[in-house]
């Protein structure tokens, strides 16, 4: 299953190497990402200012850990409180079932057009394609998502879907697809897109949004956004469907402000977003606006499998801020599409194997130098590098075997090479035969050592080992002491 949208661009995690090669050779992509990520890193750093960031991250991690520890109970509580508020709750085991539920809601209202706020889980389950198959038009209303949809692409970043495009490219897309004048004036283009979207909001039969935090204690859904499209999506159409992964639940309303502070600062360096929506019920008697029906679709899609494993569980802490990709030296160079998954970058590399299986995604856990930048900035302290290593273990069949596709990357040759390494490194006398060992070390990467020297001169064994130097050094010291 690759991420496919109709049109010219299709990407697959199976093709990571080829896609990385193409992206690395594309100066426009390189420049767009470098510039954007540099800006985002600076904004994040500045936004935390004098705050005790470590204490805040610790708080964020603990809130998420507490919610996950009580997840089954909190989901039941959320369902009960949503129902009491008049929100209809649906459970979906996988993406297909979630799509069917949303399709049926649409069909029960004879809906022809759906307007969407930004939702990564809807990307994960390919909702738009599913709705279009049955003749329901799904329009993205987040500006970045709108551009990506117009350009028949998928998002390249979970927060900034069109971050791979620069002003000129955006101008070209808007001109080609919507007929507006070419321009380098961002305000002009934004205003034009907004007026195009506004008509569609008024005409839409159903609004579909994501959820940032689902509060169990109050049965309310929090939606964080900057463009007002989220509020339009959830208030203008007569029916609102919120769709979210089951891990987005938090226990208390008071858990939201710290997570919100961490989210906006980590994501875009904002202290607050322009809009913060709390959806607590459909329109009540006597109210003049708001949807007549509100639905919540809770999607599992592999998450409860992750939940069963006490290490992998940490993956589910994620609040989808994107800081890990903004700070990732690999993502910065290859861009989001290279990963070929809904969620790119470090979080994608630890989440996608569970959603798509390791067979599809086997090159993702290794697509990291384990530099630790992702783990350092994660607002909820997900140990991303450790989880990458854990998935590397799974992919070579050395883990617990509970990730789909476990063992797919194991080759007899590599396994034998590591056994050989083990043997040498546990036989110190043989290891000490220095240069001989140096020659043998090449077996560690038999087919790939050549690529090292394409870009760098070859490392040269020193001839004398430290072991030998130390012996000589100790002998000469002993000699001096004698004299």
């Amino acid at each position, binding site marked *: 299953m690759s991420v496919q949208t109709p049109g010219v661009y299709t990407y697959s995690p199976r093709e990571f190497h080829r896609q990385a090669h193409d992206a690395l050779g594309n100066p426009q992509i390189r420049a767009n990402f470098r510039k954007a990520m540099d800006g985002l890193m600076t904004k994040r750093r500045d936004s935390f200012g004098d705050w005790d960031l470590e204490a805040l991250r610790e708080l964020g991690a603990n809130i998420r850990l507490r919610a996950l520890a009580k997840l089954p109970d909190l989901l039941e509580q959320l369902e009960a409180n949503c129902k009491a508020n008049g929100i209809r709750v649906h459970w979906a085991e996988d993406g297909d079932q979630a799509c069917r539920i949303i399709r049926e809601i649409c069909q029960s209202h004879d809906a022809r057009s759906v307007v969407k706020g930004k939702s990564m889980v809807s990307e994960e389950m390919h909702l738009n394609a599913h709705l279009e198959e049955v003749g329901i038009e799904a329009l993205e209303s987040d500006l970045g998502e709108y551009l990506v949809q117009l350009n028949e692409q998928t998002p390249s970043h979970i927060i900034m879907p069109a971050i791979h495009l620069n002003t000129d490219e955006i101008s070209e897309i808007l001109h080609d697809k919507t007929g507006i004048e070419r321009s380098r004036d961002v305000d002009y283009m934004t205003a034009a897109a907004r007026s195009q979207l506004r008509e569609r909001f008024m005409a839409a039969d159903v609004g579909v949004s994501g959820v940032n935090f689902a509060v169990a204690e109050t049965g309310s859904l929090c939606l964080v956004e900057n463009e007002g499209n989220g509020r339009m999506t959830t208030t203008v159409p007569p029916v609102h469907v919120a769709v979210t992964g089951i891990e987005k639940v938090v226990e208390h309303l008071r858990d939201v402000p710290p997570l919100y502070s961490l989210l906006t600062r980590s994501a875009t360096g904002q202290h607050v977003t322009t809009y913060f929506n709390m959806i607590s019920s459909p329109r009540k008697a006597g109210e003049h606006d708001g949807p007549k029906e509100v639905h919540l679709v809770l999607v599992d899609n592999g998450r409860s499998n992750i939940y069963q494993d006490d290490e992998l569980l940490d993956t589910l802490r994620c609040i989808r801020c994107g800081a890990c990709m903004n700070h990732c030296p690999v993502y910065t160079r290859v861009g989001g599409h290279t990963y070929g998954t809904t969620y790119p970058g470090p979080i994608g590399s630890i989440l996608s194997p569970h959603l798509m299986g390791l067979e599809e995604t086997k090159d993702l856990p290794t697509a990291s*130098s384990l530099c630790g*930048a992702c783990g350092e900035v994660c607002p909820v302290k997900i140990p991303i590098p450790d989880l990458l290593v854990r998935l590397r273990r799974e992919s070579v069949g050395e883990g617990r075997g509970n990730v789909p596709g476990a063992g797919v990357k194991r080759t007899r040759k590599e396994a034998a090479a590591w056994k050989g390494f083990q043997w040498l490194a546990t036989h110190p006398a043989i290891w000490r035969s220095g240069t001989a060992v140096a020659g043998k070390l090449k077996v560690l990467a038999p087919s790939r050592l050549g690529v090292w020297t394409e870009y*760098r001169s070859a490392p040269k064994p020193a001839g004398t080992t430290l072991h030998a130097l*130390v012996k000589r050094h100790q002998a000469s010291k002993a000699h001096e002491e004698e004299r």
Partner: protein
Amino acid sequence: MTPVKLYPSKPKKVYFFGTCLVDLFYPEAGLDGIRLLEREGIEVLFPEDQTCCGQPAYTSGYAREARAVAAAQLGLFPEPWPIVVPSGSCGGMMRTHYRQLFAGSDLEERANEVAGRVHELTEFLVHVCHLKLEDRGEPEKVAMHTSCSARREMGLAEIGPALLAQLGQVELVEQARAAECCGFGGTFAVRHPEVSAAMVEDKTTAIAEAGAQRFVTSDCGCMMNIGGRFEQQKTPVEGEHIASYLWRRTS
């Protein structure tokens, strides 16, 4: 909160774990590290049976092999002396990941005990030896590359620059994106060679553009990567392990 790390007072003796990269490719760096420690009046014990910390197998997913190799190192440090490692990467492996690797096994207690004694060399020189340096070298512009493991896993971003700042004739130049990875990442460089190449290309550019005549690092993986790229480009910027640099300029 990240626990505050407490350092021991200066011991009479230390163990030196040289690491396999130093052993094979940069033995002088290891010896210079030993000399720096000895100059501080510390007797350096070098267990002969040391081989490798096991990290390459660990990060490749071969935990059983890594555990076997690591287990062979655990018995090399019987006395309670600190264990000094001239690498943030191998030091981080021993200090942080040994605990994970042996959790729940018979060796857990010993692994935790050993891990608690591991110090990266420059960290040890600054925080335990309170090293004072007198520069005898020529004026030079130098860039510091702190490895990602030293910077993030060991929390030692300030140490290298602080040592270089003691060298009166050395001007530490500011490079763009100093905290960014050089692209080595052990097997990453061979599994994703093109991405790694793009990263080291940017790193060498940043160091050269900063006007550095030399770069200094505390990790030989980074040195092999960045230095190898400079050499292939024929850019006259040489890399040197910080232990060798400090020893050379102050002896």
